[in-house]
């Protein structure tokens, strides 16, 4: 983004200095002449790249001729070039109060605001500007960039495509256009835009950037193609090769990805990301022991990389190797005593091996380390319930609902605990549980667990038709949940729909034997995107 704006500003700076030169000829008062001299020197300094000196000269010019807007505008411009955006903006706004029709200044102001990520204000100024000067191509370009940042892809594509000459001058604007096209499902147009990246002098970086965009958009074939086009040895390059492997991984071409990664390792380019991705390749190909070995190797080679520990834990838990997961979790928390993520996963592993009191401690530590992790607090509450710490669990759930009111998992899981408690005869717990579920669904009707619990409750009370409504909804939302299919089988059977019941029971049996799905089966490097 910076380079694009810099280019805009430098073009205009040239124009500004020209303005200074032109305007100087019209001034005749002695003070103004002195101001003019400062302005002229400022222009020279801008051209020489001495922005600090240019700033000082322009300040002098403004002081001597405070009514001269061009000097003020010049100062604002130089400040923008120095990235002193706040003061630059203030000056531009001052100019615009006097000459609101000053397209150039308004454009600069918009550019500043864009660089400051104040997109709505940038857009507002650009829209005013384009009403005054609809054919201002620089502004159309800038509005395209701003719109893309605001995820207004249709507008972004319209603007950027309308000024092809300007758009094609920078890789960043081409990429913005391509990204917009991808979001509009105009894949062919996106690819066409990305194809222009190879024309740049520093093509490698541009193409690399484009490949990243294609990968992010799910156009893995294009991503891979672009990366391979960088050079004949692209696959051996540590960074490019990794990106190729990542694109292949995203395209579910795990064999190819694995080959690329093993090639990198053979060429001594085995970074921690490479090993991490290789581990995930093996995992996705159900080669669990190789996956495990790879992550263990990664841990050995890069012992300070927390991601490999955490990913190893995730695949061990997904593969139901809970004891092994617990061993690794203990190592992880020793190695990274301030990692909330490590303690959270340790808590999960301890829950899986039913060491509930330990799980309470681990989740509590995760929560203590990072009070933004709602999953950690949820883990504390659930582990307390499992450990028979009923009062403590209730208190934690209540606290969780207050602290994270948007996180409906607290309501749903607390309800589940209460409904279980209700089976021991606690009628109030049942009422509370049911109310929590209803409230959760009012906030978000797409909660499969809430539908499932309400469905089960209705079923237990003999309200089979009502149960079916909830369970069918749960199935739509969570088609791979074995317990939902089981509950549906029972409901259909009660209603005399034996064929549907058998169908659901078959699904239940197929799914209940499957390994647990990990919460985030993505390579750790992916989550940083």
């Amino acid at each position, binding site marked *: 983004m910076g380079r694009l704006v810099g280019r805009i500003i430098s073009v205009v700076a040239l124009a500004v200095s020209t303005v200074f030169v032109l305007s100087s000829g019209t001034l005749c008062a002695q003070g103004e002449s002195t101001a003019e001299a400062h302005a002229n020197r400022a222009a020279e300094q801008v051209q020489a790249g001495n922005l600090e000196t240019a700033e000082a000269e322009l300040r002098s010019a403004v002081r001597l001729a405070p009514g001269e807007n061009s000097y003020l505008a010049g100062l604002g411009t130089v400040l923008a070039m120095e990235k002193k955006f706040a003061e630059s903006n203030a000056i531009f706004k001052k100019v615009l109060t006097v000459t609101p029709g000053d397209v150039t200044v308004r454009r600069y102001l918009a550019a500043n605001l864009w660089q400051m990520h104040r997109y709505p204000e940038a857009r507002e100024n650009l829209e005013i500007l384009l009403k005054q000067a609809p054919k201002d191509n620089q502004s159309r370009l800038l509005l395209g960039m701003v719109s893309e940042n605001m995820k207004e892809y249709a507008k972004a594509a319209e603007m950027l495509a309308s000024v092809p000459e300007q758009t094609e001058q920078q890789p960043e604007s081409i990429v913005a256009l391509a990204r917009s096209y991808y979001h509009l499902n105009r894949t062919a147009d996106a690819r066409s835009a990305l194809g222009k990246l190879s024309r740049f002098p520093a093509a490698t970086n541009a193409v690399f950037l484009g490949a990243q965009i294609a990968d992010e958009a799910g156009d893995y074939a294009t991503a891979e193609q672009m990366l391979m086009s960088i050079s004949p040895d692209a696959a051996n390059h540590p960074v490019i090769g990794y990106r190729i492997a990542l694109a292949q991984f995203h395209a579910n071409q795990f064999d190819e990805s694995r080959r690329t990664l093993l090639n990198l390792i053979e060429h001594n380019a085995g970074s921690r990301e490479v090993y991490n991705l290789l581990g995930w390749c093996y995992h996705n190909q159900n080669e669990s022991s190789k996956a495990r070995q790879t992550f263990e190797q990664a841990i050995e080679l890069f012992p300070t990389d927390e991601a490999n520990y955490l990913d190893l834990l995730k695949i061990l838990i997904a593969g139901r190797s809970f*004891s092994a997961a617990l061993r690794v979790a203990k190592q992880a928390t020793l190695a990274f005593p301030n990692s909330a993520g490590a303690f959270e996963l340790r808590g999960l592993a301890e829950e899986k*091996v*039913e*060491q*509930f*009191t*330990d799980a309470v401690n681990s989740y509590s530590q995760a929560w203590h380390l990072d009070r933004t992790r709602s999953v950690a607090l949820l883990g504390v509450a659930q582990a307390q319930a*499992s*450990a*028979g*710490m009923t009062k403590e669990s209730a208190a934690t759930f209540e606290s969780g609902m207050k602290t994270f009111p948007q996180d409906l998992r607290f309501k749903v899981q607390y309800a589940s605990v209460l409904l279980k408690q*209700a*089976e*021991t*005869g606690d009628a109030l717990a049942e009422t509370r549980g049911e109310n929590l579920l209803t409230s959760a669904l009012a906030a978000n009707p797409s909660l499969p667990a809430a539908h499932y619990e309400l469905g*089960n409750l209705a*079923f*237990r009370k003999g309200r089979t038709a009502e149960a079916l409504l909830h369970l069918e909804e749960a199935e739509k939302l969570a088609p791979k949940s*074995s*317990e939902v*299919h*089981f*509950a549906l*089988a*029972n409901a259909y*059977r*009660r209603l005399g729909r034996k064929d549907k019941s058998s169908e659901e*029971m078959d699904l*239940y049996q197929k799914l*209940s034997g499957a390994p647990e799905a990990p919460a985030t089966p993505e390579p750790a490097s992916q989550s940083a995107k």
Partner: protein
Amino acid sequence: MLRLPTFLLVIFLVSVALSQSPSPVSPAKSIFTDVTQESGITWSQFSGESPDRFLIETMGGGVGFLDFDGDGRQDIFLVNGGETPKGKSPVPVRNALYRNLGNGKFQDVAAQADVDRINFYGMGVAIADYDNDGFPDLFITGYPECALFHNNGNGTFTDVTIHAGVKNSGKWAAGAAWFDYDRDGLLDLVVTNYTEFSFDDPKKCEIKGVRSYCAQVAYKGMPLTLYHNNGDGTFTDVSARSGFDKLIGRGLGVVTIDFNDDGWPDVFVARDASPNLLLINAKDGTFKDAALDAEVAYDASGNAKAGMGVDASDVNGDGVPDLVITNFNDQYHSLFFGSATFPYEEGTVASHLAQFSKADVGWGTKFLDYANDGNLDLIIANGHINQSIESTRGDVKYQQPPLLLHNDGKAVFRNVRQEAGSAFNSSYVARGLAIGDFDNDGDSDVVITRLNATPLLLRNNVGQDSGWIGFELQGTKSNRDAIGAKIVVTIGDRRIVRWIVGGSSYLSSSDKRVLVGLGHTPKSSTVDAEIRWPSGTLQNASNLEPNRYHKIVEGPSN
């Protein structure tokens, strides 16, 4: 009005206050008394507990009531466990056969009877007269084989396993039940096999660094075995023909009873982390599993509970067999009300059984009318498997008290721990449980086994205070023990239904006599009984005298 002197008034007021205050917690006599010590029972179970933590070490504990010598008194047979590679016994591991001497005393005559030694790790016992000679025989389950001991009628037994063809080789057998599945008058045998197992494969599991027993899901399940009694002292393995060999899971407790009242015995198998089985007799040598239709296979979430012990009888007074199954902590022991149509109604919560069993791991269980009020109460033996459970949570203990639950007549239970006796206020690692009237006073007594400890013999003190009637049935066309018989007792306008079941509880075998509590009925009431024999014969007996046992021999239908 006469004015009492003040001090008399005070005394009067105090006595009124005392009479209105809640009665003391402990009643005049407890429901059960632990009479183990005075009975002379000193035998102790040996589990072979070892550092290897083989799962079998924590699973044994069978016990049975039987009158082996025909003297009219219930004796007790106790199955021992066995040695493991690193769990050796300083003395030979022996079973016990305690002969009831009649005065509350018992004497171990297992050696004289030749039933003290087996060549395998012992689990449970199923007792019945398989050859209809009038003397109960013993089928002992275990790993890696089983044994059948024929009662010679003279105080001794003979191991006829090989001749009979019931060795069940290579399998870890747990529960067993005698029943006449084809109604030919001869008792057949169903055996539940638990898991694939070998002492050469000690699976390593830990809890917080301490070696522990692995969860049952670490072991693959096994099929059931079904033996058909050929009537000549031999059996034929009909597991394949019957389809039992395809029912693979971790089978434990088993009970046979006519669930659908068609006159043919059915089978319920409680399985451990495998779906339970409700095998309805198809009357052609095969069975159909209706557990899914009855909704007794899994819990509400589709999980197979850890079913260990089981019993079946009519707990809600509707004349249809109900089921109780003991499970693991947090699962609650299950109660299902049987019905003529599926599904069965889940009664675990409504009966309050859930409330009382959340932290329990249950094993042996029986319905029994301890108070002889005509309603079936419930007794459960509890105890965890891992000593280290208490380090992972605060609410579940390794040693747990047994449960005695009183039925209000509508299948709602009340925990009567306070009145039950010291045994119910102490904690154990209990396993097997059998009921029998060892003192012939008309109420059900109980024996409970414990791992690596003596059993508990609990004498019932209260049942005899109410009216009762006992039935000792002898089949002629039916199997002699009348296993499978249904008895409908009518007294006044009250109708009570009971069965002679095969199997039941956990690894254990109970007194075959049927006790029916009559409550406090007027002396003028008459007791009538209708017996449906396993053969299908219907026989009526009228004007039966209460408060005694009646021996009824199968005759023609009337």
